[in-house]
């Protein structure tokens, strides 16, 4: 069991954003989490990635509780997150973004010491550059590699977020509404990228409110409402679950 979340809760003063959510993800599996706006999806993701300290519950990553750890520790443990609205370094080019994201990969290089690479960065640079090109190719951004982040379209920004996440060699990738705000061809692009990721065996945890898009990929699905888990199981069963339908469409719909 790669990731096991046990009754994770988060309170902002009186408001309970995430209450008592538990689920588990095994290696190579894709889990989809969906729910209407304000159902606590992004808060849940921020709790997992350490951007928000949880009010209660545990997050077992490979058996070890990482709830409340600092984001960089969680990231170096392999739990990498993308942002709902992409966070970028506005002045830098796409390629520079990915090179910065190569830090974790760099720290995991075993074959030679960091300090030698400080004086003669040649070799490590070329390895990282080659990995960066691969990540950009994976996300269909290779021709945009010299464009500045400020000049990218919304779809390209989202893709850059995924590319940067990939560079960190994640064991689990938490995708925060990857499809929202994308045009049709960008969604096709995203779908092919997710297929490649699945082929790589990367564990994915996708949250979105585009149910149809999620159902296509997720092996397992969870529905959230007002921070609580109201349904779990195979995507189509969850979609058919009356509680989900009521939450989504506001009334029971046979």
């Amino acid at each position, binding site marked *: 069991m790669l990731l096991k979340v046990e009754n994770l809760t988060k309170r902002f003063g009186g408001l309970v954003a995430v209450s008592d959510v538990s689920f588990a993800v095994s290696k190579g599996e894709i889990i989809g989490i969906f729910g209407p706006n304000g159902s606590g999806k992004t808060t849940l993701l921020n709790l997992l*990635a350490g951007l928000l300290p949880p009010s209660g519950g545990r997050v077992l990553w490979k058996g070890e509780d990482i709830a409340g750890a600092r984001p960089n520790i969680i990231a170096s443990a392999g739990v990498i997150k993308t942002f709902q609205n992409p966070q970028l370094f506005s*002045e*830098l080019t796409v390629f520079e973004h990915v090179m910065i994201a190569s830090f974790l990969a760099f720290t995991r290089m075993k074959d030679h010491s960091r300090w030698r690479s400080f004086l003669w*960065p040649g070799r490590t640079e070329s390895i990282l550059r080659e990995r960066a090109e691969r990540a950009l190719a994976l996300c269909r951004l290779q021709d945009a590699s010299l464009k500045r982040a400020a000049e990218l379209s919304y779809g390209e920004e989202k893709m850059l977020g995924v590319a940067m996440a990939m560079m960190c060699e994640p064991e689990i990738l938490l995708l925060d509404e990857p499809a929202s705000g994308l045009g049709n061809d960008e969604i096709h692009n995203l779908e092919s990228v997710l297929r490649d990721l699945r082929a790589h065996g990367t564990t994915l945890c996708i949250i979105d409110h585009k149910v149809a898009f999620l159902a296509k990929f997720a092996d397992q699905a969870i529905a959230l409402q007002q921070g609580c888990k109201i349904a779990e199981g195979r995507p189509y069963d969850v979609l058919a679950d009356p509680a989900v339908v009521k939450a989504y469409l506001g009334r029971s719909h046979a």
Partner: protein
Amino acid sequence: MKSLLLLLIPLYVLPLVVHSDVVLTILIFTFLLGILAVGFNIVFGGAGQLTMFHAAAFGIGSYVTFLSMLRFGIPFWLGYCVAVVIVVLVSIVIGWICFKFRLKEFYFAVVTLAFAELCRLVALNWTSVTNGTLGMLVLEKPTIWLPGSGIVRIEQTTSWYFLSLVALSAILVFSVLLMRSWIGRNFSAIRLNEDLAQTLGIDTFRYKLLAFTISNVIASFAGALYGFYTGYIEPAYLAVTQSLDAIAMVLLGGVSTIMGPVVGALVLTSLPHLIELPAEMRVAVYGMILILVILLMPRGVVGLFRRPRHAA
């Protein structure tokens, strides 16, 4: 790296051509204050943290080097090592306090300003050690082992010129290597978007502390050389005005560039001697430059020629 060497070569050749002591002296002050500016640029241009502590490091560098030379009778370079140890410890303590409490921009600047002022007050009032306001006359000089003539005391202007130029070159090479390495990339990540850097696995606390410490060590190097060159150390070395000079040099020359601080240092050091302005006007021109640079040329002189990149 190549562009750096290209710019430094003519400076090495200069003393063979130019013999006027005044020009060499102005250049020596440019190099020494340039080292201080490069140090500041690493933490501000690199990691985006506006510190006001580099003047205190500058002063501590000169005081501790000289005092350890007096007290233990060791040569300049050993004395400077003692100063580095002290500056590193002080930087870690202050850096830890500031970054643990996640002080942002303005508050970080104000707290480091407060610590720098406290160091200045200590230097001012600890008269038994630092001789307080009377300052200390430094008659010792750094010594260097030269292949031909063994241990040589650096006294004449030309020998000081080469010592300070070699020191500046070493610091510039180090800063190029640093900014091109993974450390430099992490600094840029922290400067441009600290939250994103966290999620990419960068321990921003540790790297900000590293940037702060490196910048203070370089500032103390500039302080040690400066104190021994002028031959007089006083509490004013730790004053806010010293910090502001370095900041103005980096802003004028170009933030986040390698040669920017040196260009800024050259302009601001030679300015008072080139244009014969009445004294009051000179201070006004100084302020005018600071304002114009920030409003019109945010990327400074050198920055104009190159797009800002994190030296990748």
